């Protein structure tokens, strides 16, 4: 029952924060940090446990909580990031009104996500899923203004997804007479393929919407960019990964390996979707001028990698997908937090065209952002490299060069937009109005520091997380990977991080020595800069505006978010149609009487002529 008590404790704690926050303003922050940390601790202590408990009976369905390696990894990530972003929020939310509400919802989201990964049956999965949806909605709306349409988009997509999932669950229930995951995995083999595909489609809509797979991605960019930054970190880091979790659960736990990859065409469709999800948002991200929106598009693209990994279905790809989930959670959270720190210090500016030169003012944030971006690109010695390497390798060696092409070119696009992000915020000229910007406060630095450390740590020692992932994929029915502490051994090309590390270190030392042996350089300020012999006035010598202008010109004409446009157009159409529909209530009684009589007449007439009833 420990799981159940943990959830109860967390929910009670969330309410407590809200009500404590009304009377003792300071205590809510302490409470929030303590509760989230305790959650993290609880989950960490559950390592290696494997059991499930029945905690409730809902309309004749037995609801279960369950923990095993698979859900443990996700739960740990959730609680860990939740803890860090709550710490980050301490200063981010300090001056905001109504932050008890914020903390409460933040905990709600975390608990709901925890519930999702710990759910042992589909009904409680769904219930937590919905709690997550609405608390997320409240949090996205938190910043008011332009956040409102964003959260509307989110909640509508979310409702569509969750309802289709509900249908899927009930359909599955009709077929199998159970919703308990561990039982479903035994029974599912007796169902015919058509039904399985139908269920997979229904679930895929729900998970695809959360995971922002391409035709369902349109909620994500506005939602991520408008949410408060610590929450964006959660949103991008783990919330959308609930879709990943769902896909893994559906494909590998419920349906199982031996069925899912024998469904005709399904994997091909999913892989192609994943490829589109990688390429298209990457290029859209390059065109963005809002830091958080850029990161949001990047999130869509990276979710595409994860999706590619888990739908490709070899052990390398699944391991890579799960590992990339973990990595993406870390570095994208880090980047969102860094942008959040900037946003906090500049009082809410995140327009890439008006920032610049912050490296001189916020060097720590820059370092964090740089490490995050390196992870995002997947440079060697960061964690992103290993997971991407796994995915690429399996794509190439299993004869899917076009998918591999999508993944690789996505990486290059990633370089472009990450560099744009770094350049336009931190490099270049510092505008005069930001001369007095201060460094990020400690409560912001600490989470960033921890996350940066993890990125490097996992990058150098990928063996540690890969061992956990190995256990997960073994439980899916795969062969374990041959993991060493520093990499992966296999027949067709090894990966050995230690070589790269050693070489980098040695070369680095040599080059630095060589560099230092040269004549010492003079430090000059940013205004001592070549400008064809003139001294350029402040504010005039910056190239942050439309950084990739040629590419913009090149792409803008045909690269738009057509799907979003399509959705918006159809929403407008529906609205129009709805407006038309209610015109039948004309306001004149005679017509109402006519409806009544017509109804009666039609009933009688139909029955008399055709006797259908």
């Amino acid at each position, binding site marked *: 029952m420990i799981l159940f008590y943990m959830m109860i404790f967390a929910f009670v704690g969330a309410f407590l924060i809200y009500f404590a926050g009304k009377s003792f303003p300071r205590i809510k922050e302490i409470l929030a940090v303590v509760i989230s940390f305790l959650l993290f601790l609880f989950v960490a202590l559950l390592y290696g446990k494997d059991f499930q408990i029945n905690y409730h009976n809902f309309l004749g369905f037995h609801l279960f909580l369950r923990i095993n390696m698979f859900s443990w990894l996700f739960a740990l990530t959730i609680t860990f990031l939740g803890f860090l972003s709550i710490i980050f929020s301490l200063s981010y939310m300090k001056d905001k009104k109504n932050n008890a509400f914020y903390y409460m919802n933040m905990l709600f989201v975390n608990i709901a996500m925890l519930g999702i990964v710990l759910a042992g049956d589909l009904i409680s999965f769904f219930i937590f899923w919905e709690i997550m949806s609405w608390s997320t909605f409240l949090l996205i709306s938190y910043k008011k203004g332009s956040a409102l349409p964003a959260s509307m988009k989110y909640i509508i997509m979310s409702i569509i997804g969750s309802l289709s999932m509900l249908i899927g669950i009930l359909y599955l229930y009709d077929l199998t007479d159970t919703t308990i995951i561990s039982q479903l995995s035994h029974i599912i083999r007796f169902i015919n393929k058509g039904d399985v595909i139908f269920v997979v489609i229904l679930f895929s809509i729900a998970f695809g919407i959360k995971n922002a797979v391409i035709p369902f991605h349109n909620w994500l960019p506005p939602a991520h960019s408008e949410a408060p930054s610590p929450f964006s970190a959660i949103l991008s880091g783990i919330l959308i990964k609930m879709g990943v979790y769902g896909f893994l659960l559906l494909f590998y736990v419920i349906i199982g390996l031996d069925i899912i990859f024998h469904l005709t065409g399904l994997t091909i469709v999913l892989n192609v979707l994943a490829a589109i999800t990688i390429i298209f948002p990457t290029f859209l991200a390059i065109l963005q001028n809002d830091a958080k929106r850029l990161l949001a598009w990047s999130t869509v693209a990276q979710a595409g990698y994860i999706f590619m990994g888990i739908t490709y279905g070899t052990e390398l790809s699944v391991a890579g997908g799960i590992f990339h989930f973990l990595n993406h959670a870390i570095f994208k959270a880090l980047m969102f937090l860094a942008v959040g720190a900037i946003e906090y210090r500049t009082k809410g500016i995140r327009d890439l065209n008006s920032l610049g030169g912050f490296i001189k003012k916020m060097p720590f944030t820059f370092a964090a952002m740089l490490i995050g971006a390196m992870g995002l690109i997947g440079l060697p010695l960061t964690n992103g490299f290993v997971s991407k390497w796994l995915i690429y390798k399996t794509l190439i060696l299993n004869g899917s060069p076009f998918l591999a092409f999508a993944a690789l070119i996505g990486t290059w696009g990633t370089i472009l937009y990450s560099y744009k992000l770094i350049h336009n915020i*931190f490099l270049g000229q510092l505008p005069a109005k930001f001369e007095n910007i201060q460094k990020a406060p400690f409560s912001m630095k600490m989470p960033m520091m921890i996350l940066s450390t993890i990125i490097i740590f996992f990058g150098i020692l990928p063996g540690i997380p890969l061992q956990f992932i190995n256990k997960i994929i073994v439980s899916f029915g795969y062969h374990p990977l041959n993991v060493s502490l520093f990499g992966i051994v296999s027949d067709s090309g090894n990966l050995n991080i230690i070589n790269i590390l050693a070489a980098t270190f*040695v070369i680095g030392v040599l080059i630095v020595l060589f560099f230092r042996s040269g004549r010492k350089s003079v430090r000059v300020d940013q205004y*001592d800069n070549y400008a064809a012999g003139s001294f350029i006035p402040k504010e005039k010598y910056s190239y942050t505006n439309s950084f990739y202008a040629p590419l913009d010109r090149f792409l803008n004409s045909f690269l738009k978010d057509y799907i979003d446009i399509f959705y918006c157009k159809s929403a407008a159409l529906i609205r129009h149609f709805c407006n038309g529909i209610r015109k039948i209530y004309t306001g004149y009684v005679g017509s109402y009487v006519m409806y009544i009589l017509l109804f009666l007449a039609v009933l009688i007439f139909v029955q008399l002529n055709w006797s259908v009833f």
Partner: protein
Amino acid sequence: MNILLMILSAIISLVTGMFFLGLARKIMAMIHWRYGPPIYQPLIDVIRYFHQRAVSHGFIFDLGIIISLIGSLLVVFFLPLGNISSFSNSGGLLVILYILILSPLGLALSSGESANPNASIGISRKLILTLSYEFVLIIILLSLMSQYQTISLQEIVMLQARKVWSFASWKLILPGIAYLLILPAMLGFRPFEIAGASQEISAGPSVEFGGKYLALNTINHGLLHFITIALFVNLFLGGGDLFGIFDSISGTFWGSFVSLIIFLIKMILIFVISVFINAVFPRLRLEQATKYILYYPLSIAIVGLIIVVAIN
């Protein structure tokens, strides 16, 4: 042994890189009907730079250029030079692709910190251009990897030695042509001298580089020439192998030496061709370059990849 190989390959690559820079200037001068500078002129330049009192714009300004050079040198270790290969067995082509990123990224960070708009424009151009030729390069590499069913460059070279050079195998002729077409862009030669356009944007990314920064940048430039061409030679021209003539002495010291020489000769050949192209073409605009790359080399490469995949 490995360390020795590393040092050896580093030295070879540095020397060859500087030699290439000088060679390029000399050949250009000769095409211009000039006498031209001595072939070691880049070395003199580097020494001069190194003794100048540079200006620095900040920590990343220093660090970026160092990262850039580290990246370039790292790639060298992953490339088999003839029979010499330090650790081409730890990640293969994918790692090379990734470490290739380091060098431009370090340069970009460094010049971004310099806060000069010319540098930013240069970086922006460089990245866009790189993106466009990377489309082609990735497809080329993918066709090779699919063809040989490995991601290890070492194995690709070995397989070539055993069978026949990639360029001579009809399946890989289209990727080879595509690689040749994007080679000037990868080397930063005209008609793709867009990022470092010295007349237009004052040498672009390196506008604020002087002194030792410029020295490192020049060395890096040479190394990049070396890497680009070495990659091509390894992928398509059979590395240090010359139609199997010297198979009898392979494995011995002389074998390695001969294969290294053959390798370098092949590289020089390719480089000279690229310099000729550089000499006779004017510069394209970025849009034109991107369009060109995305039309011709890309379509050729895609056709090549389709052929490779279809046959396998």
